[in-house]
């Protein structure tokens, strides 16, 4: 366990040396611009729009940060051969991979928390009432991060089997879209009358990560009476799917030759 934490710490520090925090500057500028613009354009829906835009921006920037970091996490070290320095010591590949994953997730989480704090400060300054929508807000923030964890685990898996950062990025983005579109896949399966096509759609529907289960940010008031469902079942789903992706990544990494 100590080795995992050491690798996670080294990954975390490395990410910040690589100026991951620039994403925070980008977010800050976007929030400032949005607050001025939406104040002028949105009439009486400024708070709704600021909430939606902020939550979407936090998730998107975290998603992009996570997939770029995960996509290059091991590949970069393999190319620069620095991976030898670690794996020739008494560190197993499992410990190395898990440590790198955790370190990256902590880096993304720290940016995520800062962005959320900045967003909350802006909302409160604009007169947002936490009593009314506070719980929904924090549920959305929590569930959004679950999505980031899941897609990060998938991204790591893709980066290991594709051996190319670009291919891994494309796969990850494809699954991100497919995961959000999964409910539409179910609808399409219902519309199709050919048996084999219907079966294909159904199979894809069950196997792709269902990001809509964690999309409280988008479902918003409609989840108000189903909080427990989202918290418990969504979190279990994220945990199992992420574990599945990480175990597959480990299996591939065990076979990898450098």
């Amino acid at each position, binding site marked *: 366990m100590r080795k995992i934490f050491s690798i996670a710490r080294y990954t975390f520090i490395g990410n910040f040396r690589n100026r991951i925090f620039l994403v925070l500057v980008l977010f800050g500028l976007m929030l400032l611009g949005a607050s001025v613009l939406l104040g002028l354009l949105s*009439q009486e829906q*400024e708070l709704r729009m600021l909430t939606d835009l902020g939550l979407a921006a936090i998730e998107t920037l975290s998603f992009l940060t996570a997939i770029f970091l995960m996509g290059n996490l091991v590949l970069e070290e393999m190319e620069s051969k620095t991976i030898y320095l670690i794996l020739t010591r008494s560190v197993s*590949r499992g410990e190395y991979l898990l440590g790198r994953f955790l370190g990256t997730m902590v880096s993304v989480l720290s940016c995520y928390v800062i962005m959320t704090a900045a967003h909350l400060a802006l909302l409160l300054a604009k007169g947002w009432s936490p009593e009314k929508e506070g719980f929904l807000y924090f549920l959305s923030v929590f569930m959004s991060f679950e999505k980031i964890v899941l897609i990060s685990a998938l991204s790591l898996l893709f980066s290991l089997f594709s051996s190319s950062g670009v291919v891994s990025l494309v796969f990850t983005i494809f699954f991100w879209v497919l995961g959000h579109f999964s409910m*539409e896949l179910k*609808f399409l399966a219902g519309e199709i009358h050919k048996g084999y096509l219907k079966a294909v759609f159904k199979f894809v529907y*069950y196997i792709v990560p269902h990001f809509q289960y964690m999309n409280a940010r988008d479902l918003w008031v409609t989840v108000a009476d189903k909080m427990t469902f989202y918290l418990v079942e969504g979190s279990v789903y994220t945990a199992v799917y992420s574990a599945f992706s990480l175990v597959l990544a480990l299996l591939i990494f065990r076979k990898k030759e450098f």
Partner: protein
Amino acid sequence: MSGISKDGGTARHFPSGALYLVPAALLALILFISVKIESSFVFPFPPFNKLIFNIADEFSALTSYDRPLGSEGGYRDLGGVLIGMRRLTADIAWISVLQYYGSHEHHEEGHSHDFAGGEYPALKKMILRVTRLDPSFQYAYLYGAGALTFGTDRPEEAMELLREGIFYNPTYWRFRLYVGAILYKKQGQFGNMIALLEDAIRYPDCPTMVKSILANIYKEKGDYARALKIWLEVLDNKSSDNWYKIQAEKQIGELGKKLGNSD
């Protein structure tokens, strides 16, 4: 070329066969959870084929200058749906509605209408575009119903909008209040309509536009005191849009004079 052993520096690992069982078991668990969640998960949005993409097609015969502002680019909405951002996409589409309803309609005769003074033929579809993206956007239904009934005098379209609003938000009873007001307007029962609108404006989610409509009705009826009170409330309300605040100031001055109160 193998510079390093497959197991890193240590030989600690599971027997290979056992390790392959783990993802298989996890996959089975994922399928089990998916099926279980699916049985209780209600997706509250209409399917993507109900989204409204092609509002501009109806107006393709017009010059680009005369086409409804913001009616093009509906296919961009699909991008928002694909990345799970229906609410944000609905917000962007809502800004288009506001820009359209605030635009000056241009006519061949060369004159144009003031803000919200035109016919806005695409208004219902523009609002439906927003509400199909996010059916829980109740304010859009209320605003749309008010604008279509009292702004453009198309209560039938407003009723269609509210019918859809009630379908997606069956517990949001305020839509029924608006339905009642529209029905009374159609039947010419203005007293009953005003009573319902009075009820509607008591709630904080009532669009300022509806308040301004009621104030104008009172003004036309000669009840300047009540009209003045509503405009004062609009002016005091922090969330009122600037345009309405300017209107409120104008109306307050005018009504004050009519009431013989120059203050």
